[in-house]
């Protein structure tokens, strides 16, 4: 396993194996993070590709000695924010709703009556959250960022970030209780 510094140095020398190592070390992680933001396989794949195409252009400016992940996380967050904003600027949200209806139609609550305490309820509840609230939750609880760091990463006022987090977690807790009550 190469260190971040070794990978960056190879990349900055223009060596392909450096970039290949970077992909091997971080492609899955970027995909997972993009997926947790966007909750859609195709969108997450597109976003992953966009992130690394940006890296191809920008790697020369990266400062060696800094860890790669915070930078990649920022590029991933920006890329996904752009996609979320473009999607919400589109007047038509019908395809998303349709997909959701189909998903809930395919879901049979009876068959899962005993599985209420596994992750599934949480995954479904996360699907339903407004995208920016979900992004704040992911940055807080999977990335462990502070409220301030989330505000900087998402380029939002601190108050907005707090509101997003409080609302999202209240929604999720209530969803969890409903799920437990039903099961």
């Amino acid at each position: 396993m190469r260190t971040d510094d070794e990978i960056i140095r190879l990349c900055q020398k223009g060596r392909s194996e450096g970039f290949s190592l970077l992909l091997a070390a971080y492609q899955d992680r970027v995909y997972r993070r993009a997926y947790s933001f966007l909750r859609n396989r195709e969108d997450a794949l597109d976003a992953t590709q966009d992130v690394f195409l940006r890296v191809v252009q920008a790697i020369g400016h990266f400062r060696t000695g800094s860890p790669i992940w915070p930078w990649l996380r920022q590029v991933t967050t920006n890329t996904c924010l752009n996609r979320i904003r473009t999607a919400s600027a589109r007047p038509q949200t019908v395809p998303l709703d349709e997909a959701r209806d189909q998903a809930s139609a395919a879901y049979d609550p009876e068959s899962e009556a005993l599985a209420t305490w596994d992750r599934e309820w949480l995954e479904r509840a996360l699907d339903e959250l407004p995208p920016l609230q979900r992004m704040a939750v992911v940055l807080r609880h999977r990335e462990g960022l502070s409220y301030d760091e989330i505000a900087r990463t998402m380029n939002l006022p601190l108050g907005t970030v707090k509101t997003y987090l409080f609302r999202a977690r209240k929604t999720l807790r209530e969803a969890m209780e409903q799920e437990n009550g039903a099961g």
Partner: protein
Amino acid sequence: MHCVDDSLLQMLVEGTLDQPVEDLVRIHLRACPECRRKAAGYKQLMWDLSQEAKKETPPELDAMHDALLTAWKDARQAERQRETVRRSLVPAWAGYSLLWTRHAMAPVQSMGSVVSKLGGKLLEQLTARRVSRRGGGGRR
């Protein structure tokens, strides 16, 4: 007694409350099973949220790895070409600019004297015409 707001319960679980506030919230919790239940819910929720879902990554990522590597090679290739062009251009450009400066200085000076003889009026007109022509060109 009023129940505490959900945001305070969340912050209690996260450990982000100031001590005096935390003390007040804890006093309330001792007396209120409903808020204790909510706080326990947030504790469970935050633990669950911190766990990454163990999902398979899609097989497309392998093909993407190869495509991105090609994009990388193309970008570096283009960079090397630009670098070569730049290196071969720099001396030529430097020579040209030197030549240009030496030859251009004389006409500029003589024009300056003509302008000063005719007065600022002509210069203003010339400039105005050039600006309007440029504006027209820009609109096309």
